[in-house]
């Protein structure tokens, strides 16, 4: 659920912009204003540039962009859909979009794609298929993200850890592999002793070696999901649109147990002594040495406002190899729009190299089109930011897995998150908690 930064929850501001679309919407094919919605304030400028380029090429079609913060975005969108006055095109995401498909709110664009012969192989492998169901297509991929380890460069250097030590970490749920040794070495108590030292005092930890994310829904994208996948865990029977979840898999319970062992050893903060603040705040305050980070946080950790020097490293390789969650967004057309052809033109442009090169050039996210991804990489390099690891992981054969896309996404998210939290708090053991949650989750599909 922490898919994109929702910290700026106060930024409702731009709602004002939507007010004035009615005048131009006279149905005249040559003079159309399309409403386009997105939630990421970091990306608004990129898409405004795309909109300007689009209007220059199609003078009759204006694009009105509205940005609102993550939580408000979905509530506003659903309310607008319910009242029959939704934006013509909006940015879509895996856990929310299934209910819009089920309720028939998204236009099937497969006929347009076939007619215009859109090349679906130009996108990062697998992304285009995420937004299809029963031969119908509900969007074109716009970008993707992968996960990596983020670490505090100065702190690790002080502990005698070189960046090369992080390049090829291993992990397993029983002894934690070289990843756990690294975490131990990076954990420092008030007397300056690290976690490997016999004199290490786990009751007085100053810097935790690893900061976990426990408000991570049913996917564990920011931590446990990646490790569990590398331990052979798969979320469900088929993705997208599976109906049978597998949270009772022992491979997942073993992963959660390993996390609990980190807490027991003092390498990670206990959940009941955890911070309610975000991990990047804590990392910035020097309270943690290593954590997971998504490629959408690149500018948080490497940007000019970062509170310390950070760098990225590949996620550790588990018993089944190195696995990182990959996730993508798409653009959807509202089924009730009066301007289907114009909306399709815009969506096609958003999914084309013309727009995605602009987006990539701004170096905020990695666009779905492979060539545009290189542009993003180059943009980061120009700013002296090393983000190669995200791209390498995305390209690695069998190195990625998709986050589940099914109905009841948000309800499942809460159920599984509660179960994992209760296991980590020690209220029940992991296997029991996950089995119970799995039964609840699967009951939703009956």
């Amino acid at each position, binding site marked *: 659920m922490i898919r994109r930064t929702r910290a700026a929850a106060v930024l409702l501001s731009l709602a004002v912009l939507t007010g004035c679309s009615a005048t131009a919407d006279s149905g005249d094919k040559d003079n159309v204003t399309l409403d386009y919605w997105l939630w990421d304030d970091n990306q608004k400028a990129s898409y405004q540039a795309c909109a300007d380029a689009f209007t220059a090429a199609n003078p009759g079609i204006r694009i009105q962009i509205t940005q609102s913060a993550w939580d408000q975005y979905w509530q506003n969108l659903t309310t607008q859909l319910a009242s029959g006055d939704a934006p013509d095109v909006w940015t879509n995401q895996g856990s929310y979009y299934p209910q819009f498909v089920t309720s028939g709110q998204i236009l099937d664009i497969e006929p347009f794609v076939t007619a215009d012969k859109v090349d679906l192989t130009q996108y990062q492998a697998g992304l285009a298929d995420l937004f299809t169901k029963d031969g119908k297509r509900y969007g074109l991929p716009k970008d993707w993200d992968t996960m990596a380890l983020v670490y505090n460069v100065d702190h690790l250097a002080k502990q005698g850890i070189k960046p090369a030590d992080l390049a090829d970490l291993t992990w397993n749920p029983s002894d934690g592999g070289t990843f756990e040794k690294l975490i131990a070495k990076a954990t420092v108590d008030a007397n300056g002793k690290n976690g490997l030292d016999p004199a290490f005092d786990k009751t007085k930890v100053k810097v935790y070696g690893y900061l976990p994310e426990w408000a991570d829904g049913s996917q564990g994208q920011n931590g446990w999901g990646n490790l569990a996948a590398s331990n052979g865990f798969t979320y469900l029977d088929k993705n997208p649109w599976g109906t049978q979840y597998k949270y009772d898999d022992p491979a997942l319970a073993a992963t959660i147990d390993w996390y609990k062992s980190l807490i027991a050893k003092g390498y990670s*903060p206990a959940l*009941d002594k*955890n911070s309610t*603040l975000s991990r990047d705040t804590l990392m910035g305050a020097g*309270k943690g040495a290593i954590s997971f980070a998504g490629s959408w946080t690149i500018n948080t950790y490497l940007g000019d406002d970062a509170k310390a020097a950070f760098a990225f490293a590949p996620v550790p390789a588990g018993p089944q190899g190195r696995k990182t969650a990959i996730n993508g967004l798409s653009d959807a057309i509202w089924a009730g729009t009066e301007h289907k052809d114009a909306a399709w033109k815009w969506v096609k442009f958003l999914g084309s190299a013309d727009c995605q090169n602009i987006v990539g050039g701004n170096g905020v996210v990695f666009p779905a089109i492979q060539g545009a991804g290189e542009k993003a990489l180059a943009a980061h390099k120009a700013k002296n930011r090393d983000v190669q690891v995200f791209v390498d992981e995305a390209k690695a054969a069998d190195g990625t897995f998709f986050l589940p896309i099914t109905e009841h996404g*948000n*309800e499942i998210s*809460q159920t599984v998150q509660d179960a994992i939290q209760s296991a980590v*708090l020690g*209220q029940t053991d992991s296997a029991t908690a996950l089995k119970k949650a799995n039964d609840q989750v699967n009951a939703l599909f009956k």
Partner: protein
Amino acid sequence: MSSTKRRDDRRAAWWFLVPVLAGFAVFYGYPAIRGAWYSVTDYTMLGTPAFVGADNYDKLVHDSQFWRSLLVTVWYVVLNIGSQTVLALLVAALMHRLTRSVVLRATLLLPWLVPNVTVGLLWMWLLDTNLGFVNHLLTTLGIGPVGFLTDAALAMPSIAAINTWAYAGYTALLLYAGMLQIPQYLYEGASIDGAGEWRMFRSITLPLLRPVLALVLVVSLIGSFQIFDTIAVTTQGDPAGATRVLYYFIYQQAFSYFQMGYASAAAVFLALILGVLTAVQMRLLRASTSDLA
């Protein structure tokens, strides 16, 4: 003559009430009726709602999450009403008997004037386990960090304390206003008879304050049951549902899961609880009669 005059007054009164009644009908009456209707449908915000009878209520009765959230809410209400009322009574009595400083009274109201979201954010940062000022002090004193908002056992008491901080001053002012209505001669008489402050508080202030106290209790009980914003800002129902109060449960069902029908059923249930509680409380405290008469 006098009877016709009274009738005229009544007719005029209705005219004065019209704006309020219109507002009430549009913003409370109509949504309440609609909510009651949705509670017997499968409304999901998208698509037309279909009648499903008592299905939502049946599901509600068998939903362990719902009962847990009700329990969590009651726990909060007990903590909050308890601490808030005692503190407010104490402060009001002190103001009544010791000082009448306007500055002090205004200061008491300050926390109440801060928007709830700000209160939540402020305390979330102050109480944070790793970066919070309070825990910094505690660690310096050697007590070690306390997970005020992340420990399952502490999270609810912490939230109750935050809201007590925010509302006790306002409640104290209401009680203080009530105390001002108690005739001064009673205290004078009592002190001539040799009664101490504590005895006067028990035998004069508390009994005569009862109508005001009853009103304050009813109002703050209803308010407490509707605790939402502090939780939405600080814990969002975590850890593991330890602070998922009824309102947050309803909010999640409605605006995260889009189960409007089910959320409406839970809301109707909450309204029923509040109605019954208010009736019982008013009766128990005989709120409409005063011992002063």
